[in-house]
């Protein structure tokens, strides 16, 4: 597996014990993300996209199947290994920012490095560098309550990127932002992807957000439904996405 960062093979997730009422959240999903890709995951609510993100981000274990991130099989890891893996190889951006409001922006961003025991001096340089990239170097000493939502999400992105993760996992990153801030964040993300070769997987239900991706996987009822590749400009891709969504909705209604 030359350039693949993420390899998901036939992953199933079943909630509930055997013999009781079970719900199949994922019914055998397989996908591969290459290094430097910007992949979107779309689907209606209840389709299993959050479950997929949870098993990939090691917060949840799949019932069946194999997940490899950067060549490491994460399905067999123990609890502490998983925690270390998360803190070293993965970067997260959540819808509600998930910044610790009792730490300054600087301390929030520094946290993944502190956990790895990086020397204080090196932490300083790395945090400042990533803060400059995301244009938040002015607010490093402020607390999350003192900055805007857009800034918060940039700070969260900085925290997700500061330790050079193999892949950046974003869960509805624009969900709590106004359109202007959302646009600016998406531009930054596609910038990171293009100029810094950051591999990104983004879960979203918003077509506009998804149009910034290069490839989009649609899932429905716990299975991959279809996938589309961006070929032309963003505008055209946006239309393409809407078409698929309409199709999805239609198939839903008819049955």
């Amino acid at each position: 597996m030359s350039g693949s960062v993420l390899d998901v093979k036939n992953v199933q997730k079943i909630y509930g014990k055997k013999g009781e009422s079970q719900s199949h959240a994922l019914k055998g999903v397989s996908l591969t993300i290459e290094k430097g890709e910007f992949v979107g995951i779309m689907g209606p609510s209840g389709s299993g996209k959050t479950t997929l993100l949870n098993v990939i981000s090691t917060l949840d274990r799949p019932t069946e199947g194999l997940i490899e991130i950067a060549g490491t099989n994460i399905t067999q890891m123990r609890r502490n290994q998983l925690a270390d893996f998360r803190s070293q190889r993965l970067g997260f951006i959540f819808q509600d920012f998930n910044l610790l409001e009792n730490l300054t922006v600087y301390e929030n961003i520094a946290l993944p490095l502190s956990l790895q025991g990086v020397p204080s001096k090196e932490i300083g340089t790395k945090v400042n560098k990533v803060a400059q990239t995301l244009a938040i170097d002015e607010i490093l000493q402020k607390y999350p309550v003192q900055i805007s939502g857009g800034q918060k999400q940039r700070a969260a992105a900085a925290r997700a990127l500061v330790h050079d993760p193999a892949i950046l996992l974003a869960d509805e990153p624009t969900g709590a932002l106004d359109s202007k801030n959302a646009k600016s964040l998406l531009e930054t993300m596609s910038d990171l992807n293009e100029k810094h070769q950051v591999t990104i997987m983004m879960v979203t239900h918003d077509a506009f957000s998804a149009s910034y991706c290069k490839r989009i996987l649609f899932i429905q009822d716990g299975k991959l439904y279809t996938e589309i590749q961006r070929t032309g400009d963003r505008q055209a891709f946006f239309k393409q996405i809407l078409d698929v969504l309409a199709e999805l909705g239609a198939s839903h209604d008819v049955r």
Partner: protein
Amino acid sequence: MLFKLSFSSMRKMMKDYLVLLVGLVISISIFYMFQTLALNSDFTKGNSVISSIQIVFNVGAFLLAFITIFYIVYANSFLLSLRRKELGMYMVLGAKKGKISQILFWETLMMGIAALCIGSVVGIVLSSGIGNLLMNLLEISPEGYYPFYVPALWMTWGFFLVLFLITSTINAIRLARATELDLIRAEQQNDSIKRKGIGTILVALLGLLLVAAGYYALIEIKVLQVLGLFIGAGATTIGTYLIFISLLPVFVQALKKNQKLNDHQLHAFTFAQLRFRVNSLTKVLGTVAMLIALGVGAMAGGLAFQQNVDLISSAQHVYDITLHDPAEEDFQALHKMNVIEQNTYRYKMDEKGYYFVKDDLLAHPPLISTNTFENYSSENKPKRVTEPLPHPAYIMYANQDEHSNLEEVPREWGKAISTEIIISYDMLSGKAVQIVDGATYDGIAGSEHQVLLAQVDDYLKYKPELKAMDQRQKQWIKTIHEDEEREVYLSTKYSTYEAVYAFTSGTMFMGFFLGIAFLAMMASCLMFKILSGATRDKDRYNMLRKIGVRHSLLIGSIYKELFLVFVFPALVGLTHVLVGMQMFSFILLDPYVNIWVPTLIFLAIYAIYYYITVQLYRGIVLPKEA
């Protein structure tokens, strides 16, 4: 319908309510326990060496009431925070505000009454349990102490019912004032970070100054008397609060400023949590420090009184055993003891007095104590009498007109005779004591006797034997007076010990009783406050877990953070105790004897609370791992 709903949701939140209920029960039972002593003034007056003990209890009752009010207010806002979201939801769905306020009012009151019922029972059990434990441990039997004491019960119910009524009303009013949205959006407030400026430094300085003044007043209590007690208590208390308000946040801030320390692992988070805690817990921490001081102080005071019994008797008497005309049983008993020194002196007795042989005394000069009550030090070791006796005869306890031609017994010899040899005032009754040379002695017609002085390794090891010896000596005195009905009071070392022990055991009992009550109250106060805020921290720990912080690191962070929270008030409280014990220096020979015992008891109670708090907190903020 709404009542039914609220009841079922209370059942669902059983765990949170349990924390609340336990907190209330502890506070009620301790309040009751305290009142069983405070209101029983016959017992306190009869069993104390401090005449003004009632003042101490009144101050204590006031303090406890004060702390309890705080406690209830915390408990109440905790209750409100548990319920407001749900009640807000009912209001959004169209329930009338008056109805909701009413529900909350009754809920708070019911909760309080339930806590009162359980608390009274627990209080009675606790009082009798601790009472019995102390009586057994301290070998005392305080007559007149009742674990089930009706006035105390009345007091407890009255006090808490009024408190609960007030808080229920406050809750209802608070709810009536809030809007629906306020209620639903509760909990989303952030920790405000206040910048500390010059004002803080001034407050810190003022706090330090007040504590210093309080300490000074306590150390100079001999000069200042009761005034010193009030200045000491007042200034130290206010100073403590000021220090916790100002100095501690600054200290934690300084910890955070250390970039290298702060960047290490989870320290940034740990310190941030700690800062939030010391900012929101300033008053609690101050209260805890004061309670520690009071609790440990009460125990140390009680213990010091008991330990001083030994000191008092040892400061008076060097020889553990004084036997006039020892009997066969006495020798048998002596034979079993580990005797360090033993001297025997001959003397004759007639109706005018006692005549000791100078040569016997000079051959084995006795030891005398160099300690006085006014000037006590454990460094003052007993010394041997060295004064020469050149004259043929000396006299003491003489009638003014008689024997005026004889020399007065020199000071040290006089002390040896009066404290070590003459064991009862009843021995004298008009008789003089003479030291005479051999020739004079032979010429005296009276009956011949001897007295044995002995020093053993540790006289407290031989209490029963000593008691029997004293009994025989009493009989001996009765016999020489030929008066069997006579009441004889001995002043041997053991008799002194027994008398003072009986006198101080009540004080010690109260000291330990109060000490344990204060400590239990203090620690539960701290525990409760930390736990009631724990729900807020849940999200933070969840967040950390998501970004990949090891479980063990999170647990470590909790241990460290709470350790520091616990350690600050302990340090301040113990310092207060160390200085505050000076207060007893006017009544005790050495207030610091065995101070490590109450300190250890305190540390044990404290450590247990620390551990329980960490475990409970962990249970709230860290989800169980699959």
